[in-house]
């Protein structure tokens, strides 16, 4: 009998090497430079782009922590020009998502102040 020498079986998962596809969590700060703030059209562009990534996208501002893939959440921030938002991406493509989203925020289409064709003055 070798009762005393018996070791508890090790769970196989604990023996495996750590997988290299662990989700990354990355953060980046971006400033809203659109003169009308984060109104519907830039929000729409942001959400459409965010939805192309697998990663979870969160946006933090002023104590709010909201879903960066939700139009209502982003519009609900009511963020005017000059607001600094913290973008947080968590997932396999977090770095690519943050790169793309921060490039969008400074792009001309995001900042185009004209959101209508009419130029009526009077």
């Amino acid at each position, binding site marked *: 009998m070798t009762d005393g020498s018996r070791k508890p079986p090790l769970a196989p998962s604990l023996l495996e090497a750590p997988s290299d596809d662990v989700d990354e969590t990355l953060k980046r700060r971006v400033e809203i430079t659109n003169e009308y703030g984060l109104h519907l059209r830039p929000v729409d562009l942001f959400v459409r782009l965010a939805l192309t990534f697998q990663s979870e996208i969160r946006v933090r501002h002023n104590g709010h922590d909201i879903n960066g893939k939700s139009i209502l959440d982003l519009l609900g921030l*009511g963020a005017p020009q000059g607001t600094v938002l913290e973008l947080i991406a968590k997932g396999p493509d977090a770095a690519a998502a943050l790169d793309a989203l921060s490039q969008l925020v400074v792009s001309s289409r995001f900042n185009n102040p004209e959101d209508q064709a009419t130029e*009526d003055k009077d």
Partner: protein
Amino acid sequence: MKLLDFVVPEAILVDLKAAGKESTIREIVESLHRVGCLSANDVDSVTRAILSREELGSTGIGQGVAVPHTRHPKADRLICTVAISRRGVDFAALDGEPVDILFLLVSPPSQPGDHLRALEIISRHLKDERFVHFLRQAKTCEQVVDLLEEADQGIP
């Protein structure tokens, strides 16, 4: 700022007749004219401006809600009204669903802050499923006003 600071209660429509996107927008703009918020001459121009804005991207923001809007020089203050469609309108919304609740906004170009703040307030209330549910059930203008008042009191 509260919903009833910019929603014009008399212009609320609880049973839109129109079925298409363009006719729906026109019907709501005409309602704003009917209560004296816009002159007859401006109905066409405001309707066209809102439709041009829609061409840049639908304002159907999901869950059956749209916020068609324009910044228009003829608005001397932010005006908005609520309209409910019983049959639903194809608005090319992001989620593809027909729209049955509309908040239509016309704001002066000189006051971008008010426009942003109105969108913020509307969005925050639309996240409340109970609010949206009861809005959909509302049969009279007064019921909509009661809901808006209740919502206004709920948010500090």
